[in-house]
């Protein structure tokens, strides 16, 4: 269906993608072969200024743009495949739902080919920029990671092939051949994840180098790849990428909702936006913990990282981060609460919204409290803040962030109950037990946090792990209970998809901009924490301007990157949507049912 009448355009798009992919492969192969032959004997950097451009800024922009597009094309196939499988599972007993899920997965996948082209183009540009401006650094990296530079393009090409087959055979591989399509999707995800893991090894080696001696000579490639920061970054990126991709899909749906000409179209894109936000909210539950895991490993590698980030020159960056994440969480929760308006009979659940809002805002105020507020290098002394005192310690922050996540989860539980009447005989007792467990979870989280506040540091770390386990345990138990409680529940009225207020769509679009900006900020943090080191402790950055810009200057660059990203994405989506205009489209897809 998607290909009819648009073969030429798609072929052209596919060929441009292949050229871009080949360009990336060529750059990496070139790095992997020619440079490995170069006699780079020590970790000594050398610099060039091609065409008199600001190399640092160019690489910063190219790397960040590439990361963003790569995150998108890595994450979307994950949940698109999951949704496709949900539809496949329903194919025999509920054909209408199966078709709807298949449409949703395909609609999300539709964003991939243009984004993939941009991933490859920005990747090639990044490769050229690095090679041209930092030949010494790239030579050294090739000396260490030469074999991975050869393997990487192979997986990249395999991912490319799977992506295009997966997307363009969507309509052909239906029915009894669906399993082949799902298999292609699985392969796409496996290759994509491997590609990311390889690239993460290079990035984390720069932060937590291992497998080399003090002079920088390679001792053990395996240790260089599996350096202390590698697996934490893999985990963090996997989770964050899904949040990122889901919010971009939700924003796309919001845009289509606002431009929709018919109610049916609005209903479908309302559902798509809801699903995107739900996936993002779910993965957001794990993001702070993935971040702490990465942070703990960095701190274990070198305490310098911890103090630079939390008590040193970058401590203010984490105030900005807390504000951005607060906007993200509160925005996503606000959209979820607005969703009550689509559900007739949800008034009992809506009463909780103001209380939740207050908890979220208070929680973020604690989270944003810095350990130290250094206004200058001279003030970076590691002591407590004179006014805010010990509120900036990890124990109160852990209470705050864990309670915030619990509130988000409870919002979701309320959403599930909105407009439904429980019919099981033990409904009252079950509800009391469920709410009792939720209160108990909150009390245990606060109790552990208070205990950790007074305990020594090594105990405090253990209590924070227990807080996470209590939260996860509480969520799992109460969710399972909820499944039984809702079994056979009577629906008062169907969800009125397509009736979401316009401000809900504006929120979804804003959330996409916020997550992109946040990703830019954290990309900067990860790089800036190395201070004047290309590879921490091994290769010093001796080029002019090896310091750090002010956070204000960094924010301007991050905003510029965010806007460039959206302009590129919008242009590529617009081009790809030209091909979709003639589709029969949504008329054939049954509207979404109640959730």
């Amino acid at each position, binding site marked *: 269906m998607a290909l009819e009448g648009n073969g030429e355009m798609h072929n052209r798009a596919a060929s441009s993608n292949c050229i871009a992919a080949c360009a990336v492969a060529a750059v990496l192969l070139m790095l992997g072969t020619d440079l490995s032959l170069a006699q780079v004997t020590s970790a000594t950097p050398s610099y060039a200024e091609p065409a008199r451009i600001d190399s640092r800024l160019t690489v910063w922009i190219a790397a960040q743009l590439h990361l963003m597009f790569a995150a998108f094309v890595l994450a979307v196939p994950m949940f698109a495949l999951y949704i496709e499988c949900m539809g496949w599972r329903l194919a025999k007993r509920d054909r209408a739902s199966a078709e709807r899920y298949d449409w949703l997965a395909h609609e999300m996948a539709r964003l991939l080919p243009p984004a993939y082209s941009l991933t490859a183009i920005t990747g090639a540009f990044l490769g050229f920029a690095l090679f041209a401006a930092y030949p010494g650094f790239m030579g050294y990296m090739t000396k260490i990671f030469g074999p991975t530079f050869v393997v990487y393009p192979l997986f990249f090409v395999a991912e490319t092939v799977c992506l295009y087959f997966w997307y363009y055979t969507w309509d052909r591989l239906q029915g009894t051949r669906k399993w082949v399509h799902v298999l292609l999707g699985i392969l796409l995800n496996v290759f994509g994840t491997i590609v990311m893991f390889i690239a993460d090894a290079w990035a984390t080696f720069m932060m937590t180098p*291992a497998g*080399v001696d003090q002079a920088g000579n390679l001792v053990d490639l395996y240790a260089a790849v599996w350096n202390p920061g590698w697996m934490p970054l893999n985990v963090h990126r996997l989770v964050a990428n899904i949040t990122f991709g889901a919010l971009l899909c939700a924003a796309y749906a919001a845009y289509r909702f606002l431009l929709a000409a018919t109610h049916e179209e609005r209903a479908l894109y309302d559902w798509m936006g809801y699903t995107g936000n739900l996936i993002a909210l779910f993965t957001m539950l794990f993001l702070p913990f993935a971040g702490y895991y990465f942070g703990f490993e960095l701190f274990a590698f070198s305490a310098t990282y911890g*103090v630079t980030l939390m008590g*040193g020159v970058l401590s203010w960056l984490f105030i900005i981060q807390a504000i951005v994440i607060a906007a993200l969480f509160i925005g996503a929760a606000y959209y979820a609460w607005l969703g009550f308006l689509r559900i007739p009979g949800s008034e009992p659940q809506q009463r909780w919204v103001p209380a939740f809002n207050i908890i979220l805002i208070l929680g973020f105020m604690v989270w944003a409290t810095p350990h130290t507020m250094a206004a200058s290098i001279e003030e970076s002394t*590691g002591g407590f803040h004179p006014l805010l005192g010990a509120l900036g310690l990890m124990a109160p922050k852990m209470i705050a962030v864990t309670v915030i996540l619990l509130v988000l989860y409870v919002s979701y539980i309320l959403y599930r109950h909105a407009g439904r009447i429980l019919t099981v005989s033990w409904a009252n007792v079950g509800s009391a037990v469920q709410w009792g467990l939720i209160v108990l979870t909150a009390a245990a989280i606060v109790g552990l946090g208070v205990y950790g506040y007074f305990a020594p540091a090594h105990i405090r770390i253990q209590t924070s792990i227990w807080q996470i386990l209590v939260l996860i345990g509480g969520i799992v138990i109460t969710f399972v209970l909820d499944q039984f409680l809702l079994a056979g529940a009577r629906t008062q009225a169907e969800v009125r998809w397509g009736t979401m207020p316009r401000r809900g769509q504006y929120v979804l679009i804003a959330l996409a901009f916020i997550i992109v900006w946040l990703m830019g900020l954290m990309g900067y943090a990860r790089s800036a924490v190395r201070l004047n080191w290309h590879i*921490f402790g091994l290769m010093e950055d001796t080029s002019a301007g090896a310091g750090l810009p002010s956070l204000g200057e960094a924010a301007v660059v991050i905003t510029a990157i965010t806007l460039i990203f959206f302009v590129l994405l919008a242009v590529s989506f617009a081009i790809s949507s030209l091909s979709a205009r003639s589709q029969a489209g949504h008329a054939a897809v049954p509207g979404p049912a109640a959730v």
Partner: protein
Amino acid sequence: MSVTMTLRRAVTPIVPALVVLGFFVWFSNWIPQTRWEPPKARAISAQMTPAELARIGAVLTRERGCLTCHTIEPNAGLKGQGRGPNFAGIASRRAKGVTGGPSDLAGYLAQSLYEPGVYLVEGYANIMPASQRPPAKLTYEETTAVVDYLMSLGGTPTAKIGDLSRPSSEAARTPSAAAAPTAAGATNATALLDKHNCLTCHAFKTGEDRPGPPLALAALRENAAARGLSLDAYLIESIVQPRAFVRGGFPPDLMPDEYGTQLTAGDLHAIIAYLSSPEPKP
């Protein structure tokens, strides 16, 4: 539909998002602005007096990030709200060095900078990177200046360039200064290994069936490289904080983590010198 109308429909939805981004940019520019610059090399001559060196040391202590963990809080006690001991009054507190380690203030301060994990003040974790390593990356002359500055906090600076010992890795590069472990030192180390039952779990040869990793020099060097540390620093960490880095599938919680408090600095030195020496072991 007119072009203006189309444009308005396309742009209006992103206006709230642009307002939010505008707020982020405003906030980021509203907070205190600091540009971080890499540390600059300072001219330090051998003719400088300890007082002159102390003045340079005061600047270096701030510039190289010492005060992100340590504080200089008079009357705030040893801890002084920092992650490391309070510098205020350190010269009077450590006038006689430490038991089992250097018995003079300058020697103790130099050792604390070169090998901060050797003698850990009670209640502190082994988190400080060696001063000659990143991020501080102090030269020998700069280290002398920092030592003089610390001596000035509750005392009088006395160290001149050349008075302090050099870090062991630097000394090892000078053949004449390379200190081979003495026979007495080796005997002392083997006695210590026996006393603490180290060889119950470790073997000197690779391939022997023991619950802990082998102590063969090649294996130790390989692990140190994997950890990204010098051999000495790796051995110190492995003894004082055995769970910080475990390689090769060995149980992570088998080795007790109390040797940091049981061993004196001298004992630790003796064991490390023995393990890192190329001499044949039983």
